[in-house]
């Protein structure tokens, strides 16, 4: 039907949007936005200090403190590194996963959180398949909550470990970050952006330090409206054009579990977006290649790239333990003094 022209309205006053009350607990890390530049610098510095500290001395920092790991989704890297991080600091950890707990019987996230608090948990590390779950858990328990991935929304510790990896390669020795630490750096994030919490956390974090983030993928996995995701974020549909501008390339897995009926021609996808040795050598011969894992060899990237000299994928994993030691410490030790919200 024909569109009817609607006259341009005079500017009207409308109800304001209230400021966010989150995080309630200064030790929480729900979003990368919860950390100011000072807070980021502190986490990065503590990650290095803790990594280098004598293990016996380190184990006294959180000796016998109780940390719960609440996992509603399967995870290898994130769960293991959080657990190792908490244990390295001397904390007692308890792992609760949705398949072997009362969650199976229908216990709500709120009740699960309150139960863990009553059991003595002083902080909860949450991985959940619903976007926003970490905010719900924090509101219910008021404990320090570390968001270990909420649905398609955020994965702040992944963005922090990516940042640590990027700094090690491009700004070695720098830990005190500012708004222009990554000025002149272009980071391309390639693949299934739509379903990726890693992409969302990185596109919120990296531009705050001066980096340009280029999102690259097909329309089905990267809707046009992602270009409005924030300052310093743009879209490039052509992988080779994106590679040619990049010092850092973050490859993402296609999240088959979140496609929700979306049909995708994988051969077509690979032809356009797979990171091959040839593409890397031709268009970004000195860029660092990152991937949050799990990687699917032969789909988003080839073995040649995953195991090649430009790959920092296993470095990311190592950095994960250091970063998570720092955020677990921050959750339980004088968090308020360590840099609050952005």
């Amino acid at each position: 039907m024909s569109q009817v022209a609607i006259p341009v309205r005079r500017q009207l006053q409308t109800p304001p949007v209230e400021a966010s009350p989150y995080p309630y607990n200064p030790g929480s890390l729900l979003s990368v936005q919860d950390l100011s530049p000072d807070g980021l610098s502190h986490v990065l510095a503590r990650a290095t200090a803790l990594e280098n500290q004598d293990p016996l001395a380190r184990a006294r920092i959180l000796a016998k403190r109780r940390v719960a790991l609440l996992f509603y989704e399967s995870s290898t890297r994130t769960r293991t590194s959080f657990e190792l991080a908490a244990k390295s600091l001397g904390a007692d950890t308890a792992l609760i996963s949705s398949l072997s707990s009362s969650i199976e019987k229908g216990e709500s996230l709120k009740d699960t959180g309150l139960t863990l608090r009553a059991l003595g948990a002083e902080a909860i590390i949450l991985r959940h398949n619903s976007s926003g779950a970490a905010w719900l858990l924090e509101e219910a328990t008021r404990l320090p909550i570390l968001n270990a991935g909420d649905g398609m929304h955020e994965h702040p510790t992944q963005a922090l470990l990516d940042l640590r990896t990027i700094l090690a390669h491009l700004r070695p020795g720098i830990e005190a970050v500012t708004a222009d630490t990554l000025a002149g750096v272009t980071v391309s994030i390639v693949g299934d952006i739509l379903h990726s919490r890693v992409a969302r956390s990185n596109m919120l974090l990296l531009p705050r330090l001066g980096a340009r983030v280029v999102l690259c993928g097909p329309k089905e996995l990267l809707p046009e409206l992602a270009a409005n995701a924030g300052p310093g974020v743009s879209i490039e549909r052509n992988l080779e054009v994106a590679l040619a501008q990049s010092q850092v390339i973050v490859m993402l897995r296609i999240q088959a579990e979140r496609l929700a009926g979306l049909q995708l021609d994988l051969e077509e996808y690979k032809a356009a977006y797979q990171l091959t040795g040839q593409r890397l050598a031709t268009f970004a011969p000195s860029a660092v290649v990152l991937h949050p894992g799990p990687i699917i060899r032969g789909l988003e990237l080839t073995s040649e790239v995953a195991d090649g000299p430009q790959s920092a994928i296993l470095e990311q994993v190592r950095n994960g333990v250091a970063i998570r030691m720092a955020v677990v410490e921050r959750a339980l030790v004088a968090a308020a003094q360590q840099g609050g919200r952005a």
Partner: protein
Amino acid sequence: MTALVIRGGQLIDPAAGVDALKDIFLKDGRVVEIAAPGKLKATNGAEVLDATGLTVAPGLIDIHVHLREPGQAYKETIASGTAAAAAGGFTAVAAMPNTLPVNDSPETTRWMLAPERGAKVRVFPIAAATRGSKGEALNDYAALKAAGAVAVTDDGRPILKDSIMREVLASAARVGLSVIQHAEDTRLTQGASMNLGPMSFKLGLRGMPPEAESGMVERDIRLITELRDARAHLHVAHVSTAAAVAAVRQARRSGLRVTCEVAPHHFLLTEEHVGLYNTNAKMNPPLRSAADRDAMIDAILDGVVDAIATDHAPHALHEKEVEFENAPNGITGLETALGLSLRWLHKEWKLPLGRVLSLMSAQPAALLGMKGRGTLTVGSFADVVVFDPKAEWTYRAADSKSKSRNSPFDGWTLQGKIRWTISEGRIAYSNLA
């Protein structure tokens, strides 16, 4: 039956063109006399309500509420929902059929109307358009109308099949019932929990495209155009997008009987109000973009919108204290509708008081053929709201008469404090504080 005199108030009755100081005499559930102050004739023994400085208007009418009975009394009952209605100045509410069981029968319709339900104000059941609201087989509209239904709809479960919708419009027209459509092409909204846009992308939530609403409105308008039956009436429930309201505007210009309602949250809030997963900002249709919200304001101001309706949808606390995508859709609205409309439509955006009241009484009454309501003339029902149009107050969801608390307007400053709500001559609500 008691008799009441409302003395000294400013009577605003848009349908009758009255805006003057009047005394009103109510007896046996009807308006018996209206006269200049001090000029009523026989009022012996009547209780006198002093309305000096207050506005007296036809009781408000909400044509879109969910009273949850039968079947979900833990969320709301007809008694608690109508108590909330009375507290909000409403004297009549039209109850949606998505109950348990679905109200698709004369028996359920009559059950809802039975005195045992304890309704504080008049309830008008809206019956399901199809058996079980499954969108397949039509119900017996003549029997439903005879039992008291005022319209048919499959609210919340829109009728997707063209052939069924065509039949629904034709059959309803034959018996003189309106067809209300919750316009949503559910094939485009699978798994979605808010409006599709930058905000849904940012929050990592699946979004409902505005076209899912406007496309369905356009489809329905096409069907009613093809029907060529002057009796056919399509009412679009809770319009929320600029494109859908444009379609209604166009249909109206073509002379079709297509009407629409807008809920307060759609002319006030946007997707930004979802904030960080506030489940009390989750409803269907969802909060839309600022451009859509502005289009709702425009459509109200320029008269395309026929009614303000709340889509009052109570849910228990535990149902809303869950992950955003798992939370049920809907918010309460009966106690905030007038206060929000006066604060924003009237005070802020300068819609005359009479027009606000007309959108909340005379026009909705006319839409669903509620005879003798929505106006205060001699002989009409003694459905009256008396309020202080200037008084500001703070809404506290915890104090609600509803069984549920799921309002995004908790703590908001509203305008227009209700003193009395009178339903068919009985005081259904009073607040003398």
